[in-house]
């Protein structure tokens, strides 16, 4: 069974079509990259999957359950981390993890928090206010929160955007391990094409709310006569019509 099935998703704001008939799937153990220029509809898509934005059309199923009718059950199996959604800075690292652990109904919560503090190298910041952490440390905390409930679907919106290369590599390794070792799938957005090529099993290129291309990030550039994924990304961003007609 697919971890995530999105069918014919559409969201319109006034005259702006933010997402236009998007359909895709994420399988267990798979990391899917959702790529596209700013304003392509990536975050809107993620917000709809998270249940904080209602689609105008289409369905979202997580492990076969529709989010429209099983919101709480579905979100218990989902989690996310995004650079624009830091955890409250006026709570400590431990307090944030405790509260979100309760919200997600995590069993043996204290033990789980201990594991995550170790895993994301946050033990020394356990009692520090989240707001005083560096952006890299806050990103690690956001990822620890995203792993709290051992989600079946992990949504990551530019998770390594504020990390130095060494920490970013560690985080990528952890997320790859998460996808390969458990039964979860990952939907990942990033503007770092090197990272996408290293991490993702499959990528979807969004442009103006539509999926323009889909495929293996290692072979997709050649299939479209481009040298690198970055070159392909730039073409999608600047001249999407040349790809549509290719």
């Amino acid at each position: 069974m697919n971890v995530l099935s999105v069918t014919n998703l559409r969201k319109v704001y006034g005259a702006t079509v933010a997402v236009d008939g998007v359909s895709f799937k994420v399988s267990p153990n798979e990391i899917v990259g959702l790529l596209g220029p700013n304003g392509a509809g990536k975050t809107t898509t993620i917000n709809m999957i998270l249940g904080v934005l209602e689609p105008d059309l289409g369905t979202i199923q997580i492990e076969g359950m529709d989010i429209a009718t099983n919101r709480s059950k579905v979100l218990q199996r989902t989690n996310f981390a995004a650079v624009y959604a830091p955890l409250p800075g006026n709570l400590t690292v431990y307090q944030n993890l405790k509260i979100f652990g309760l919200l997600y109904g995590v069993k043996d919560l204290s033990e789980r928090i201990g594991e995550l503090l170790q895993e994301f190298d946050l033990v020394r910041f356990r009692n520090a206010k989240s707001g005083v952490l560096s952006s890299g440390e806050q990103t690690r905390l956001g990822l620890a929160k995203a792993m709290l409930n051992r989600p079946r679907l992990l949504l990551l919106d530019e998770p390594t955007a504020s990390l130095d290369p060494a920490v970013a590599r560690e985080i990528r390794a952890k997320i790859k391990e998460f996808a390969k070792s458990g039964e979860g799938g990952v939907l990942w957005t990033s503007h770092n094409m090197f990272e996408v090529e290293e991490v993702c099993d499959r990528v979807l290129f969004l442009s103006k709310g539509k999926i323009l291309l889909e495929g293996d990030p290692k072979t997709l550039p050649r299939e479209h006569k481009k040298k690198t994924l970055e070159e392909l990304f730039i073409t999608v961003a600047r001249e999407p019509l040349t790809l549509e007609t290719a």
Partner: protein
Amino acid sequence: MFHWNRIFAVVLRQFYLMRGSLSRVLPLFVWVAVDIILWGFITRYLNSLTSSAFRFVPMLLGAVLLYDFFIRVMQGVTMTFFEDVWSRNFLNVFSTPISIYEYVTGLVISSIASSAIGLAVMFALASFAFGFSFFTYGAMLAPFLLILFLFGIALGIFASAVVLRFGPATEWFIWPIPAFISPFAGVFYPISTLPRWMQYVSIILPPSYVFEGVRKVVSGSEISGNSLLTGGLLAGLYIILSCWFFAWIYRQAVRSGLIARYSAESVS
């Protein structure tokens, strides 16, 4: 079905914030203390001016403290909600399995805890400094507090919904709401003192039934049970309406993308 762990999370968050912040704890006591001192001396002065048996302390100081209790209850709800506004936490909270009714229940329980602290401080200070006891009101104290509590909760939920809909800047419309209501509620004077149109507004305000009741108890008259029942039923009705209003605003916010935009510019 309610999941108490999620409700507990909302309450625990507020406890953590209050435990670690003097600026959050002090307002629970400071305004109450200021009102007790101010109105305590005013009533003492008024008592010295008149030789009649009229008792200003339970009439005025008691009424002020009961109204303070109502304000604490309302602000207990709104402050807990505003913490999510101020920390731009909506996206994190509402993408968890918590339902909107669990979230609102968490706000209400947080308010019960904070207003209970405020009430205890009122009891202690007013009794110690001016010899005033809420027990002067006898058994009527329970319905008085219940009606004010229910209406405070209803108003707090309504105010939170307004801020959810119109954005963080509208919180400045929320703080003065109790001050706007107070002239109509007859905190310091009988409702009959008001012009007719204001009396019509008073009829739909549960606190007006409480303060009319307070004056009757102090003057030794009999309180109409129907009057208090009306106040209680009105307050209960407002709770139902405010919960419905909050849930409706939330659904609109999910439809329009407002919940997501509280944290990120995601409509592009």
